[in-house]
């Protein structure tokens, strides 16, 4: 980070004023860019009337109605019916009754969220597993047509998802994989493995071959050397790659919306379908979006040192 040290190269060090101006501009940009995120987070804690008030309310009384609506389905009842019910059980019951409704059951958000978790982790595990082996193969051995294979692997990630979805839809229909978690895991693995191979190859390339060679002279076989020398050295790389794969699978929408409808539907196609009475239930959408984005915030912070590598398929390392 501090490639240009301040003592030796004072000639090219930016002046104090220019640094101050730059910091102000960047911080202003950061705040502007955060407004939409802040707004959706705040909306999750508004009541439905507050969420659609004009002028938009920046200061409001926080409410858990959005989160309650996100996880429940409700039916409208007469006030007489509600009055003869017992005392409300829990905060959601109370909030719902205030709108002259009762909780009828749980919504689909939780199962969709769990689907997202299962599919994201399943495909990440598979793609990193396949990726680390293939990356080691490409990094250490003379493979015929290596460049063509690597390019082929990368180009599969570039394909337009809708174009791929047409034959996959037909294929899955034949194989009975439509709307199954297994089908989605395989599909996301295929998309992610290309990134995994390229990224991991970069990481493994950086591990000196001498380490394995020394281990093999000590009597390890090639496979043992791979397991006991290369894998531990590549842990950071494997972790970073896994997080990139997780983020992709977590965020993916095009395949999910076209190929799943129920059992295997993930959260991204579900969130836009959250509706209340008379239109979108924006507080519930805000709540669902917030819960969905929190893992991404954590991942981004964990990944910040490797982001550049990830978005350039390992080409730019610093």
């Amino acid at each position, binding site marked *: 980070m501090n490639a240009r040290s301040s003592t030796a190269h004072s000639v090219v060090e930016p002046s104090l004023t220019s640094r101050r101006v730059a910091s102000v501009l960047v911080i202003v940009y950061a705040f502007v860019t955060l407004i939409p995120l802040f707004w*959706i987070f705040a909306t999750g804690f508004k009541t439905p009337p507050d969420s659609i008030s004009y002028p938009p309310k920046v200061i409001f009384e926080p409410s858990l109605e959005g989160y309650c609506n996100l996880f429940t389905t409700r039916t409208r009842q007469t006030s007489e019916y509600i009055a003869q019910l017992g005392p409300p059980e829990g905060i959601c019951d109370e909030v719902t009754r205030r709108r002259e409704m009762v909780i009828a059951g749980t919504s689909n958000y939780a199962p969709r969220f769990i689907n997202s978790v299962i599919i994201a982790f399943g495909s990440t595990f598979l793609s990193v597993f396949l990726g680390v082996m293939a990356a080691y193969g*490409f990094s250490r051995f003379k493979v015929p047509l290596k460049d063509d294979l690597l390019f082929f692997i990368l180009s599969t990630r570039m394909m337009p998802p809708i174009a791929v979805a047409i034959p996959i839809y037909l294929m899955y229909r034949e194989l009975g994989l439509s709307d199954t978690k297994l089908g989605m895991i395989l599909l996301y693995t295929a998309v992610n493995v290309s990134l995994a191979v390229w990224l991991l190859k970069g990481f493994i390339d950086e591990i000196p071959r001498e380490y394995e060679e020394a281990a093999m002279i000590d009597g390890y076989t090639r496979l043992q050397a791979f397991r006991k020398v290369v894998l531990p050295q590549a842990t950071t790389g494997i972790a970073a790659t896994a997080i990139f794969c997780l983020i992709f699978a977590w965020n993916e929408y095009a395949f999910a919306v076209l190929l799943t409808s129920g059992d295997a539907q993930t959260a991204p196609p579900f969130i836009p379908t959250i509706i209340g009475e008379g239109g979108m239930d924006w507080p519930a959408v805000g709540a669902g979006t917030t819960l969905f984005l929190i893992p991404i915030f954590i991942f981004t912070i964990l990944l910040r040192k490797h982001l550049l590598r990830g978005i350039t398929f390992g080409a730019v390392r610093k």
Partner: protein
Amino acid sequence: MSKLNEIADRAAGATPPSLAGAVRGLSDKSIAWIFIAPTIILLLAINIFPLIWTIYLSLTNYRANRPNAELKFVGTEHYEKILTNPDIWAAMQSTAHFVVWTIVLQTVIGFTLAWLVDRKFRGHGFWTTVILLPMMLSPAVVGNFWKFLYQPQIGLFNYIISFFTGAEPSSFEMLGSVQLAPWAIVIVDTWMWTPYVMLICLAGLRSIPDYIYEAAEVDRASNWRQFWSITIPMCLPFIMLAVLFRGIENFKMFDMVNLLTGGGPGSTTEVASITLKREAFEKWRTGFSSAFAIILFVTVFGLANIYVKALNKVKSR
């Protein structure tokens, strides 16, 4: 492509790849194949086989909602229809508007931001991470919540615009108006992906060795001169990389636009992928849409070739 190899090999040291004497058990060659084969097989099954199937379907009149109908070969008829159809040409122009403007805005803003961050003020690392957040989010979820911000009466975006310009917040609809909708999607994409361009430009700026600037100082080159004759040219490969990748991604843009406008109003924001979805999964013209998919695929594949060339250029830095 073999450039890539050379670099990899150089990085890994100049030792000979096979240490025949030291290897016991499986030979290196068989290990290499055992390690690589599963990936290749998976990609063949989930990418290449479907691709070949798509090429085949694109030459037939197959419809996925009528699997038992008689299959007829129509040759290149679908391709001819697509490439002479003014509606699909219009979809390509919507795509072009989206691609060109997002690239222009993101490059200008992204490079400026990178240049500012490179002033290395205190806390620049933290603020960079904050700025990067939008690009990590799900485009679909982003599209969905920007739809909320763009609501004509209640939306925050309209409110802020009217606050600064004095226009009635209900007097314009970002998503409902034919003039504004194409810009609405450009704004969201720029919000989301400017950090991407910034990050790559930052890497470019940091790859410029100090001694070049020092030499320029010795020659008394003005800051302006230094910027145009050192900074920009040295960053250009990185900027190209960012532009190409954003170009490819936005050429096939689907999720965000589908949720924001769904291609509407009318077909003003119907970018190529949305047309493809409508043909394939709403009108069920599988053969026709397969041909369109192949056209998009070949275009992306061509751009991907150029992208990999650009990648190697940056890699050798």
